[in-house]
């Protein structure tokens, strides 16, 4: 069935690129925002404080990466629900394609797009973000793909439960973006009130952000084993739940 998986993956990439906003929305816009942000903030920062470059050098790339990952998850949720509503999933199911092959193809598409977007972003932003752009790119890419993969399983679960495509995107947004607020991306988790810290600790995105930030700033993987473990657990739990709850029509 590998032939079917590769064929379906390649086909889904081509189809995605034919969407009016497909390539522009997921690849061009994040890269553009990143460059504009870098240009705008970068100039100002050189003139002002000395602690600021660390902020931009670390947080903006990590922030942009997390946004790429989240948009991949949301787009997966939308696609799955559109496919279900339109009877496409059902039609594919009546072939020898196994259910997980269909889902795996979509995950591969999202991971590939995530990697390409990240790469373009880093290339375009090299001028503005000298920190890290030269050294840690490979491990960071691995960390981002790993985090995306894990968070995609949350997308599966949302896609499994949400009844129609019209609700898929808003519900996905409502679930994912609050997680972002507590993830430690804007405010360090340790600076949150104790109650919110507890909440942050059970949110999967917190571990993704911690891993991404760490790897970007040069931590070895061994310093983030707990993050990796947490993301693996998230993946296992959400994938198991969604296979139980998944509906084809």
């Amino acid at each position, binding site marked *: 069935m590998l032939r079917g998986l590769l064929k379906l993956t390649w086909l889904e990439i081509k*189809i995605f690129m034919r969407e009016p906003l497909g390539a522009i929305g997921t690849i061009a816009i994040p890269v553009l925002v990143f460059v504009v942000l870098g240009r705008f903030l970068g100039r100002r920062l050189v003139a002002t404080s000395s602690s600021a470059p660390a902020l931009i050098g670390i947080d903006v790339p990590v922030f942009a990466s997390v946004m790429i990952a989240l948009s991949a998850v949301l787009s997966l949720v939308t696609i799955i629900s559109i496919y279900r509503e*339109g009877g496409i999933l*059902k039609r594919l*199911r*009546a072939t020898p394609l196994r259910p997980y092959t269909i889902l795996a193809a979509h995950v591969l598409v999202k991971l590939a797009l995530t990697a390409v977007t990240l790469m373009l972003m880093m290339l375009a932003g090299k001028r503005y973000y000298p920190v890290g752009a030269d050294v840690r790119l490979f491990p960071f890419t691995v960390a981002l793909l790993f985090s995306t993969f894990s968070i995609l399983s949350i997308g599966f679960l949302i896609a499994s439960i949400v009844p129609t495509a019209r609700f898929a995107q808003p519900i996905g947004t409502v679930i994912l973006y609050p997680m972002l607020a507590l993830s430690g991306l804007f405010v360090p988790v340790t600076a949150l009130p104790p109650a919110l810290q507890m909440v942050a600790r059970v949110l999967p995105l917190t571990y993704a952000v911690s891993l991404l930030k760490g790897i970007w700033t040069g931590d070895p993987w061994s310093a983030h084993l707990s993050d990796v473990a947490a993301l693996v657990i998230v993946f296992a739990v959400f994938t198991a739940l969604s296979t139980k709850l998944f509906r084809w029509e």
Partner: protein
Amino acid sequence: MTSRSVIHVSGIRKTYGRTVAIDDVSLDVDEGEIFGLIGPNGAGKTTTMECVEGLRTPDRGVISVLALDPFRDVYTLQNRIGVQLQEAQLQKRIKVWEAVDLWASLYPRSLNGDRLLEQLGLSDKRNAWFMTLSGGQKQRLFIALALINDPELVFLDELTTGLDPQARRTIWDLVRGIRERGKTVFLTTHLMEEAERLCDRVAIIDHGRIIDIGAPAALVARHCPERTVMLVTDEATAGERFRAIPRVTAVTCQDRRFTILGRGDELVTDVIHCLSENRIRVTDFRTELPNLEDVFLKLTGHSIRD
């Protein structure tokens, strides 16, 4: 035609919550025939078909398809059957050849996709996106996808719904072509004309139950033996002559136009004999034969269009 049964369904029942979709459905489809499951929308046609395809599991009853259990052996079965689903869609921007190519890659054995598209009249739409195809073209593509693995058994669910009469006729020819390749076709339709013209045998289903099974002509003969002859004549004594024919049950006359009701296939011949023996001149002569639609009305007490 051999009488080897390729689909055997015995006493299946399927409920959704409190709604009984189908109950005690039994039927056999023989090798090489076009078998139609006919009934109004919501009668249980699609549920029955999807149970046979292995897409749904009945709550009780036995199904065997090509000597396989469609639920347990679903992946083996899928290589040997072709499926067209009601109201299924493909990705909006998938090209016709890409869909055929993808489907071909999924099966261990597949036909030449380009030749198949040519046979279905889709060659010039090879590079068109799915969303730009007309209803008839979409259905022809779905037929192509159902045939790509050269299946022994093809399922077609409401294949011509929503198509204009001309597109419908094209599709009928294609379905007959499938039978000529030696394949068995199991289809559903709510169009009685389609069933009558296309199917070797039909099963009539209503409210989730099979009412009767047989060849369309046999069902008509069994349930609606009435025949009607309408003719126009100036002959004053004609009415009495017609009433004297043994098979005639009623004769009415309105402004020289006679309507003769009777039973059995012999009625028309009898009326013609009567006309020639009595040298009755007629200026118009028409017969009206009951069809499957009348059979359905008689068996269910309601029209299939309701």
